């Protein structure tokens, strides 16, 4: 069985190289067929693993290499959590590959695109299947690399190149702490295997303080990868890449890696009392993201804020101790956010790359199917009852309610109900009202783009029917909290918010223009629009702390101490030479004088010494 698991990881890497070579040396779009076949085989292998998992987890490990006393292991640990993550990565990855055929139709180098995409899926599958932190770290960097390459896919655009660099540096900043955490765990606890770490935590074999240090260091890596406060601005800039990339990497899979890691080490985090930190960071990030999405105007950035918010909700779910809720929401979010991003991709592609929602309008007349599919995505995002988003979001809210911390509950509740406001605001602005110049020439998306959307939309409706089986498969018997009063309150607030948005953006009985003219309204809007100026804050810290003092100090030492020693030697010998050359007058009489003086000196030395 473990051979099939290794094969599932390897087939994507092999497929990526093959699709590049095929695209390079034959017709370029042939790489698409290689990618589709690879994606399908990978998905079917994941399904096969999932169906054969009934007799416990698949465990296999071997010594990879050794240095000194440290034996570096490599191995796989495939349980239901890992296989669900792999199904999300391969399934949505496959649909995304199909969708890209339509979205990337004008592209010059599809073989490069599919190479990077398959490489990404392979790294993601590897990330969820490996059994220890070192393996996780390698694939973690692998998905980070693919994210960098694909954000900067249109590398000739300055904004895209800068966004790619920003994403790379910012996630790498978190990864440095994560690496530190891995090293501390390895040196002080003697193991990097997830199951052994969790077993140590359950047995209470190390102090809580040590566990807290390791957990926080690992969590900073997760914060960077999953775009939480304060390392989230890269996710907004990452929207410079192709929309299909945003759908797969920056909504459905890679950004979930941080959540997955916390879920994987859940007993460890629980024992170390680190979950409260996870919950607080999540709640704050959710609030920032939800309010930011309410103020932003670009389709993709609204969805990016929304992604950040839902990742934050997963962290809150994990943080309050309900791993099942967090992982169930992860799965649902991956499906409906991929649907939303791909539908947004269809809109953007068919309106000649108009990204500003307020420059569109009335698109329901020109692309009705996309509009309905987008609406299904919005309903799932908002957590309206028959769709999958409702079940997991309500579960998280109930778990937070039970947890009893008013700050976390308040922030989570507000951001959870705000989904419906910014979701419908986006939908009304893009699809209803008078058609603008940009949307008049739009036409319905191609079938190759619509079919993946229909599959995802069907999933959002069908998942709730299999909720019990999925939860049982993932976590066995789980107690799901239920509060009728909370449910009623949530739905009521959501209904009221929907009414307000309906009146402002559909009926247009009130306008926000007057509010935005007022300096205070303008200021608040800018504050939310820019993500609480966290990006500017990071830039300020970089410029004034890292560049302004540390880099300047290092520069000063370099110039004055290191260069000073080298230049000082030269300057000293130059000064000696400048003084010594003065005695070389060229006058014979002077030389004679020195000679005589020398003779006298020698004579005196002989006489008196």
């Amino acid at each position, binding site marked *: 069985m473990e051979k099939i698991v290794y094969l599932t990881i390897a087939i994507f890497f092999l497929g990526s190289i093959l699709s590049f070579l095929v695209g390079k040396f034959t017709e370029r779009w042939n790489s698409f067929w290689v990618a589709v076949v690879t994606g399908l085989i990978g998905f079917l292998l994941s399904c096969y693993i999932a169906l054969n998992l009934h007799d416990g987890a698949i465990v296999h490990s071997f010594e990879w290499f050794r240095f000194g006393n440290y034996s570096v292991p490599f191995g796989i640990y495939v349980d239901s959590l890992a296989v669900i993550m792999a199904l999300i990565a391969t399934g949505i990855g496959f649909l995304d590959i199909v969708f890209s055929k339509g979205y990337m139709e004008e592209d010059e180098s599809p073989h490069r695109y599919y190479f990077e995409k398959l490489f990404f899926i392979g790294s993601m599958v590897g990330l969820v299947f490996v059994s220890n932190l070192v393996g996780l770290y390698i694939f973690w960097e692998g998905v980070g690399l693919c994210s960098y390459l694909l954000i900067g896919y249109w590398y000739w655009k300055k904004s895209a190149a800068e966004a790619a660099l920003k994403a790379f540096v910012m996630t790498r900043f978190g990864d440095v702490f994560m690496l530190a955490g891995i090293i501390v765990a390895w040196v002080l606890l003697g193991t990097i295997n997830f199951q052994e770490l969790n077993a140590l935590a359950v047995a209470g074999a190390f102090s809580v303080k040590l566990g807290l240090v390791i957990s926080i260091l690992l969590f900073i890596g997760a914060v960077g990868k999953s775009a939480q406060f304060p390392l989230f601005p890269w996710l907004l800039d990452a929207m410079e890449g192709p929309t299909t990339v945003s759908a797969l990497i920056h909504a459905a899979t890679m950004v979930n890696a941080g959540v997955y890691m916390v879920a994987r080490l859940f007993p460890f985090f629980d024992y170390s009392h680190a979950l409260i930190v996870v919950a607080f960071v999540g709640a704050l990030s959710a609030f920032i993201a939800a309010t930011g999405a309410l103020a932003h105007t670009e389709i993709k950035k609204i969805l990016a804020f929304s992604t950040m918010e839902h990742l934050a909700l997963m962290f809150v779910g994990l943080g309050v101790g309900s791993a099942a809720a967090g992982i169930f929401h992860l799965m649902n979010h991956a499906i409906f956010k991929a649907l939303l991003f791909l539908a947004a991709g269809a809109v953007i592609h068919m309106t000649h790359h108009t990204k500003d929602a307020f420059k569109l309008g009335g698109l329901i007349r020109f692309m009705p199917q996309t509009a309905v599919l987008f609406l299904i995505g919005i309903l799932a995002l908002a957590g309206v009852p028959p769709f999958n988003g409702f079940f997991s979001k309500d579960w998280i809210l109930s778990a937070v309610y039970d947890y009893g911390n008013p700050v976390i509950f308040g922030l989570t509740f507000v951001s959870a109900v705000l989904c419906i406001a910014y979701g419908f605001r986006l939908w009304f602005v893009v699809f209803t009202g008078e058609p603008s110049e940009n949307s008049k020439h739009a036409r319905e998306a191609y079938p190759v783009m619509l079919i993946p959307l229909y599959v995802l939309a069907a999933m959002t409706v069908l998942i709730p029917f299999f909720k019990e089986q999925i939860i049982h498969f993932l976590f066995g018997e789980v107690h799901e909290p239920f509060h009728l009063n909370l449910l009623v309150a949530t739905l009521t607030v959501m209904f009221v918010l929907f009414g307000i948005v309906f009146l402002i953006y559909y009926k247009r009985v009130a306008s926000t223009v007057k509010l935005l003219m007022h300096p205070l309204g303008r200021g608040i809007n800018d504050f939310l629009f820019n993500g609480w100026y966290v990006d500017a804050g990071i830039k300020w810290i970089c410029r004034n702390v890292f560049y302004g003092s540390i880099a300047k100090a290092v520069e000063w030492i370099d110039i004055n101490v290191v260069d000073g020693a080298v230049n000082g030697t030269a300057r000293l010998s130059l000064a000696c030479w400048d003084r010594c050359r003065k005695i*070389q*007058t*060229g*006058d*014979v*009489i002077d030389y*004679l*004088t020195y000679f*005589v003086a020398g003779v006298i000196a020698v004579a005196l030395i002989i006489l008196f010494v």
Partner: protein
Amino acid sequence: MLLEADIHAYLFLSFSLFAVGVYGLLSRKSVIRMLFAVEMIINAANINFVIFSAQRNVDGEIFTFFTIGLAALEAAVGLAIVIVFYKRFGEVIPSKIKNLRW
């Protein structure tokens, strides 16, 4: 056989001659006068040869003949250099000619 006291007198003579020669060598500007001074220094050495030969009863004074011959050669070569010097630079004052130093 010279007495100890007489030796000091002769040595004083030779030292004076040497000192005058060195002074002349350093203070005269013309090359020809410097050659005169060199002759005086050589002759101071000759006097020393003679004095110590007389005192110790050895035949050291023979060296004065070699030295006188050497001095004659030196004067011949030196004056030849002075003539070339004069032809090349139009004067015989070394302080004014510093071509050896860049």
